[in-house]
């Protein structure tokens, strides 16, 4: 699946950086920037989920719960209690990490269907709580989120800023910020994968038995990757809230959890760049289908089924495989 990691690692990151910084040349209006920012933030969460699902081979059908928790924690702390954005984000991540650790330990002893059920249940419970506790969260109607701020300086999509002497609109500023955050997220994830911890995680997927006989405490590593992916979701959720300026419990919904998992699966589990492509495709789909809005659900379901049946490895790995086969065929090798 992921061939020659160390070589692909750097190439993938550089490719992504180029895309991120070159994109503004092709975007022209606030709507485009807004969409791109949203995609970047969600992609960041998906990169984290990929560590759990793609690399460590676990399942989580409730990951939106952590995204929502991060979003709401920041929203409540900055909105209701006047905290500054970064402390709220960090403390929120710690809180989510603790919750993920506590919940993860017993859950990750389960496998397959039972694990999927348990993660589903956790996600739902979080969504239901967020939905019901009106006084704190605003209930189903949602709540506003103050803009992101760093030491008093605000980052808002409606602001005007200057960078290196150039005038930048708030949309562009947010987009660049989100892009950088995504790059950092990918860099950290890639560092994790190509390391002893990363191999231990991947061995949980490859062969738990093999891992344990060489000394890997598989329970501990499953917990670790679960917590890390939850923290990714939490941080991205918090930023998402600040960016949108408003959140509703739908950020923690089952539908969103399924969307996140689909992005991982579509892009190619275990391919960091692949899942970002998955996120881009699935976020752009509603835009492309704007005229066929009613068909959206049908198409989405169809994509899920067709990808899993015919390309279970995902878009990117299947394409990569296809290309390597082509190359070796033309080179005269026995493909």
């Amino acid at each position, binding site marked *: 699946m992921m061939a020659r990691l160390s070589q692909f690692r750097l190439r993938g990151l550089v490719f992504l950086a180029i895309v991120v910084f070159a994109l503004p040349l092709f975007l022209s209006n606030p709507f485009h920037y807004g969409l791109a920012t949203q995609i970047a933030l969600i992609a960041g969460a998906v990169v984290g989920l990929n560590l759990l699902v793609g690399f460590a081979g676990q399942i989580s059908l409730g990951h939106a719960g952590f995204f929502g928790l991060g979003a709401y924690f920041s929203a409540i702390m900055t909105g209701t209690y006047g905290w500054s954005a970064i402390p709220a984000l960090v403390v929120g991540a710690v809180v989510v990490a603790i919750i993920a650790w506590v919940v993860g330990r017993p859950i990750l002893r389960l496998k397959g269907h039972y694990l999927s059920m348990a993660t589903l249940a956790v996600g739902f419970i979080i969504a239901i709580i967020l939905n019901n506790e009106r006084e704190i969260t605003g209930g189903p109607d949602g709540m506003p989120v103050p803009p992101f701020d760093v030491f008093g300086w605000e980052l808002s999509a409606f602001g005007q800023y200057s960078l290196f002497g150039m005038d930048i609109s708030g949309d562009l500023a947010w987009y660049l910020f989100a892009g950088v955050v995504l790059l950092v997220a990918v860099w950290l994830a890639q*560092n994790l994968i190509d*390391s*002893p911890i*990363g*191999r*231990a995680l*991947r061995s949980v997927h490859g062969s738990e038995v093999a891992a344990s006989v060489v*000394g890997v405490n*598989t329970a501990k590593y499953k917990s670790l990757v679960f917590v890390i992916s939850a923290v990714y979701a939490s941080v991205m959720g918090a930023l998402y809230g600040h960016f949108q300026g408003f959140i509703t419990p739908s950020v923690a919904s089952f539908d969103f959890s399924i969307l996140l998992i689909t992005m991982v699966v579509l892009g190619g589990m275990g391919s960091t760049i692949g899942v970002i492509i998955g996120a881009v495709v699935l976020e752009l789909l509603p835009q492309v289908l704007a005229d066929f809005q009613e068909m959206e659900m049908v198409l989405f379901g169809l994509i899920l089924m067709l990808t899993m049946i015919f390309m279970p490895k995902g878009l990117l790995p299947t394409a990569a495989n296809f290309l390597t086969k082509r190359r070796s065929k033309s080179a005269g090798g026995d493909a």
Partner: protein
Amino acid sequence: MTALVEVNNLSKAFGGVHAVESVSFSVDAGQVYSVIGPNGAGKTTLFNLITGLYTPTSGEVKLHGESIAKLLPNQLAERGMCRTFQQMQICMNMTAIENVMLGRHLTLKSNLLTTLFRLPALTRGEKAAREKAAELMEFVGCGEYLDTEASAMSYGALKRLEIARALAAEPKVVLLDEPAAGLNAVETAALEDLIRKIAEQGITVMLVEHDMKLVMGISDRLLVLNYGRVLAEGTPEQIRANPDVIAAYLGG
């Protein structure tokens, strides 16, 4: 001298099936100790009991004189015990060298901080681990496959890879479960050499095998199992001459 591995009156029943019954023996450090017996005699079950994958119904296993009863397989690895599997357990989602580097897990010190930010401490450790892993792959004879995807390797190469991974953990005792299964005569001869080389390094080797030539050629002592019970135990010469063994196993 305390035996390295001690098995006392070990039994394992699955429902009504007595896979292993009242088995006792001990293995001294530096020996090559083989367990043989017909199919279904309980050899792999015995290995699984010794390596902590199964819990015994009764009896005990001791490693370095310490009972392994409460220990998980990864804790046994920390105490110097490693193994390979009859049904190969290779991580097909990694390259060959990554599989062997996985075996270095216990020797590599890493924490989340050095990992996430790729600090020099980590890169140094990775470099050393990679070198050691490449060395081991040479040692077992699959040095040409370093960065090959495990899923692209041949059966024989993978079997050797698994041994490399087990050795990477620097064990005191390594248990090989049917390492010759599926290998042709040439590959089996190479395996015999390899096992000899491993033993020469002072590592205790325990073997479950069907290939009589291989087993007789390299073992210091043998244990013969039949229907989960010990049929005979001794040196290759003793076993060869044992009438019960001849009747039950070696045939005519």
